[in-house]
């Protein structure tokens, strides 16, 4: 809670604090009953159906206790850590963002309703209790949802990185010859990485010919096509020839629309043709040398 300057607000904050303490002890006293009510509401709403009732009950107990702790201390750190941990466990099982948000809002409603029933005789007190409860409850909902989404984004980022590393191997077929099989969707970022990887491999393996096979690429846009040409040109600046194989008709059309100078480009229908062409280039060098 932020520091208050005026004395009037000091009084108000003290009132808030005592009210909070009162509602925290109320929620602790009625823990078992409210927790079960929450589980019923979750099951009725058909949320979390990838988890067993026992699992739901276990998590619900932990979240409930964390929830009340946050109301008491005002610090969301423990809850955030728990929510991260929970997300890590339930994301692989296919729990969706709307479910998580729905569950937290259900708990908010269950508790709010319990408070309402308890204080309904005194309208003014009920009002003050809600003044104390609502901001804290909303903060909890935000914390849990944000933790879940952040965890999800982290998982997605990790997976993207893994896919990237897996999908762009640079293979040495034999001395001076590299193959770069590109599979999947090529975006500008991946094309840039690919260029870097290719040039690094040319330098470390002293390759003279590189066969770039894009049979596994469905479609590319003009920016990516340009990236591929830039990779070819850069490879040439480093003394290596590049051969592109497996151009689909669709990609060929994209390239035609680009209107690039095709004279600098060596292509072959498939990987086999590309390798034959590569052998020819390398063979020329070998037989001509004194």
């Amino acid at each position: 809670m932020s520091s208050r300057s005026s004395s009037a607000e000091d009084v108000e904050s003290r009132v808030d604090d005592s009210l909070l303490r009162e509602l925290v002890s109320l929620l602790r006293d009625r823990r078992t009953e409210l927790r079960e009510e929450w589980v019923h509401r979750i099951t009725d709403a058909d949320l979390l159906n990838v988890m067993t009732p026992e699992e739901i009950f276990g998590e619900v107990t932990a979240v409930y206790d964390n929830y009340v702790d946050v109301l008491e201390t005002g610090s969301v750190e423990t809850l955030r850590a728990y929510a991260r941990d929970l997300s890590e466990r339930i994301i692989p099982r296919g729990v969706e963002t709307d479910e998580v948000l729905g569950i937290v809002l259900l708990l908010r409603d269950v508790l709010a309703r319990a408070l309402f029933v308890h204080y309904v005789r005194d309208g003014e007190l009920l009002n003050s209790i809600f003044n104390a409860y609502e901001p804290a409850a909303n903060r909890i909902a935000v914390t849990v949802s944000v933790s879940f989404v952040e965890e999800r984004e982290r998982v997605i980022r990790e997976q993207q990185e893994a896919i990237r590393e897996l999908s762009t191997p640079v293979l040495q077929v034999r001395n001076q010859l590299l193959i770069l099989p590109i599979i999947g969707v090529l975006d500008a970022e991946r094309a840039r990485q690919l260029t870097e990887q290719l040039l690094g491999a040319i330098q470390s393996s002293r390759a003279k010919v590189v066969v770039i096979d894009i049979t596994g690429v469905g479609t590319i846009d003009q920016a990516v096509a340009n990236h591929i040409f830039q990779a070819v040109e850069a490879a040439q600046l480093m003394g290596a020839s590049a051969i592109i194989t497996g151009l689909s008709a669709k990609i060929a059309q994209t390239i035609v629309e680009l209107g690039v100078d095709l004279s600098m480009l060596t292509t072959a229908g498939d990987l086999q043709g590309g390798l034959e062409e590569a052998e020819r280039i390398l063979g020329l060098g070998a037989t001509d040398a004194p």
Partner: protein
Amino acid sequence: MSGPVSILSRGDYLIASIQGDLSDAEVVEFRDDVAERLGSHDARGVVVEVAALDVIDSFVARALRSIAVTARLRGAETVIAGIQPEVAIAMVHFKLDLAPLRTALDLDDALELLQRSLYARANE
């Protein structure tokens, strides 16, 4: 000669090596020195080694082309050796073209390339 450059003769070849980034004036001087050495030595091939360069801008690219043309007029071939990956990416990005220059990974490859093309020419 000023600037971090060296020009050596080795048999039929002239090996001009740039060992650090050059100012524009040094680039001009380097170009003129190579041309002069081409005149005094009857070189049949020139290797310009640029592995130490972090940047090849349009000015350097033009100087390299100009060296190649001078060499060609004197009957020598030129190979640029040792362009670094980042430099190659930047050059392509800025559409700096070295054509019709030939390029090689490093000095060894450049000498091999020259050897091969001189041999091919001798056998024509």
